[in-house]
């Protein structure tokens, strides 16, 4: 158990103090760090250039300078990303990569170019029609451009061998994280919602191979523990992200376990492996073809709801929490359909509004409390 607590505490330290963790690694390894904005940056390319990919998902801050670029009704992650970037928080990064799967992210690229010229921004536009071969070819050209930029910044050529190795590490990391979320569902007494979140989040600010080694050890240690029956409720989270931290604590206070998630900030990151193949760049582009169930990936069949229902069956969850990122169009369009599907399947769903800048969580506390009571009494 001591070992478990040590690993958890180390990962939590990273998740809670990302800037410190990144700095430490940069100093220790001499590596450059590259910022990756949401969602689906091809981190493998950065990693293959021997640089450190780090996740940029905003954080709690007071919005002031960002008002120069965004009106109040913009997504709070992007408001805070803009605020932090204008405050020079990301100045130590060699560059940032910004995908554009939604309208807001398109404008983040544009405003970044205008407002943060000291940190170079590399945009990527993923193809929404990835099912046709032309989509894969196009994405490959987008990734080739990123590769060239990474080579220029790192000063080293990215060989196919290095890229293949990088893909291998990332696929292993994904598999490890999927395994971890399954263990988290079995050992909620140890892997509380706060711990689960910290273990997943810490990967954004660490070398994936190191992170994976720690999580593998954590899983091995967990496996030695006896499985206790969980007398609290079991929840599945869906949405973009579930933060700030005090919101997660409320889940814990109500004796609810997170048995699975469909969050862009968590499981959506590692549920799709890069497929096998000969050309590593083509393999990376093909991974996008296999992505599904995400509000930012085109899907006229809207399989997301069905995927969540299957997860509920698999995990025995007794409720779903729709973590609605305020002002997120893609999620807000998915919600009415999800709502209908959950109602039809008899699965209780809580609609919870998420704002990174939320000052008070009291309203959320009341809603989570009554939802927990409601599902406990079913």
């Amino acid at each position, binding site marked *: 158990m001591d070992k478990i607590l040590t690993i958890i505490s180390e990962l939590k330290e990273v998740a809670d103090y990302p800037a410190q963790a990144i700095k430490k690694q940069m100093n220790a390894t001499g590596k450059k760090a590259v910022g990756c904005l949401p969602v689906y940056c091809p981190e493998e390319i950065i990693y293959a250039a021997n640089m450190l990919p780090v996740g940029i998902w905003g954080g709690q801050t007071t919005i002031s300078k960002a008002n*120069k*670029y*965004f*009106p109040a*009704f*913009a997504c709070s992650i992007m408001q805070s990303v803009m605020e932090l970037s204008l405050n020079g928080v990301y100045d130590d990064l060699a560059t940032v990569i910004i995908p*554009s*799967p*939604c*309208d*807001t992210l*398109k*404008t983040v*690229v*544009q*405003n970044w*170019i*205008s*407002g943060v010229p000291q940190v170079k921004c590399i*945009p990527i*536009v993923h*193809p*929404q*029609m990835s099912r*046709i*071969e*032309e*989509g894969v*070819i*196009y994405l490959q*050209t*987008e990734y080739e451009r990123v590769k060239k930029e990474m080579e220029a910044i790192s000063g080293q050529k990215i060989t196919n061998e290095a890229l293949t190795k990088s893909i291998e590490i990332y696929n292993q990391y994904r598999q490890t994280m999927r395994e971890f979320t399954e263990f988290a569902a079995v050992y909620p007494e140890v892997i509380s919602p706060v711990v689960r979140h910290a273990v997943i989040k810490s990967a954004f600010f660490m070398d994936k191979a190191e992170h994976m080694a720690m999580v593998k050890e954590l899983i091995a240690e967990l496996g030695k523990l006896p499985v206790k029956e969980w007398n609290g409720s079991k929840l599945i989270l869906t949405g973009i992200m579930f933060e700030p931290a005090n919101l997660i604590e409320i889940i814990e206070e109500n004796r609810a376990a997170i048995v699975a998630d469909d969050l862009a900030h968590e499981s959506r990151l590692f549920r799709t492996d890069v497929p096998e193949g000969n050309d590593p760049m083509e393999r990376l582009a093909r991974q996008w073809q296999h992505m599904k169930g995400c*509000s930012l990936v*085109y*899907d*006229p*069949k*809207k399989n997301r709801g069905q995927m969540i229902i299957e997860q509920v069956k698999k995990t025995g969850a007794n409720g779903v929490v729709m973590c609605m990122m*305020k*002002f997120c*169009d*893609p999620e*807000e*369009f*998915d*919600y*009415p*359909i999800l*709502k209908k599907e959950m109602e039809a399947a008899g699965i209780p769903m809580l609609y919870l509004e998420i704002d990174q800048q939320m000052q008070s969580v009291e309203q959320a506390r009341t809603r989570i409390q009554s939802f927990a009571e409601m599902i406990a009494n079913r």
Partner: protein
Amino acid sequence: MVSEKLNSKQLLNQLTQKHYNDAKAAKERGGLVAWSTSVAPQELCETMGIEVLYPENHAAAIGAKGGAIPLLEYSEGNGYSIDLCSYARINLAYMETEDCCFENMPLPDLIICCNNICNTLIKWYENIARELNIPMIMIDVPFNHDYEVSQERIDYIKGQFKEAIWQLEEICGRPFDYQRFEEVMKISAESAKTWKYAMGLASNVPSPLNGFNIFNYMALIVCMRGKPESIQLFKLVAQELEELIENGGSQFPAKEEYRVMWEGIACWPFLGHNFKTLKKYGINVVGSTYPDAWALIYDANDLDGMARAYASVMNNCGVDYQSDLRTRIIKDFKCDGAIYHMNRSCKLMDFMQFEMQRRVAENTGVPYVVFDGDQTDPRNFAQAQFETKVQALVEMMEQNKAAKNEEVK
């Protein structure tokens, strides 16, 4: 072809009526009806003889006729956030109620979505496809973070034209007629050229065009770009405007004291109010991005050109392009000021607008005001704020005018 003795207003009304009637008639005889986004490659459906309707236009008309609220509330009842595009909320409600204060449009057998004006459309159309269980044709046009459209993007878009043609052949059960396609491309490009020419006549001083009429003419460039009637209409409009120029007249019913650029979609529920407020000060809207929005000009049979045209639509371009375009509009149309609509429905344009305002003002030295509004949700607009902003703009323009007169003396 319809009678040629009508004036442009009459012809416009007749064609609008025809547009909805044709779709209803097609539906009744078992023909196919499609719903499409406003700047999608209609050429493909037109070639296949599919009647195409445009939910954005339909929602705008409902808004202008004061019928938005019940539909907006209906969608909100279904779980759609009030922060989503009001066109989408109106249409997703109409899809279920099939009842509104304007022409009722038949439900679609297929939909065609092109995200060259925003990605919100993808989400909106996904929901239609899913709820009505109908095929969706998607033309994904990647956003241009660079100034030019790259060949890689053009190849990808062309691949999707090919895919769309296969999908249409399957839906219609007959082969795509490439000869007819060439004809439609010719008509569409000609229509776009005529549109741009007619709307461009507003650059004359005084402008022969009442700027708010663009909002009316627009319906046809959206709905009928692939049909010869649209050429007929815009030629007639141009002819009328040219006559006005010759006689020193104008559609604008007041003396043109100030010329401004209007940025963004109209506030449809308050069109009358907005117009009256501007007219009171002799402000005519002579500049807007609308002439360029449908200037989809390419050579017939040039698929690269067609792909480039659809990818170059201004909403698909970054701040550099957007700012240059407005700078050019203000200069070419000799604008004294600019009015920016901070349109709650349009996050893509809103979130680039602040930077654009700064750059355009710096490039042109022309004063501007910003008002909060919404294209069709009347709850997001305040008449008093609009009036105060316009007044402020008039004061700034007046000062500039006085200073200019001083210089001349």
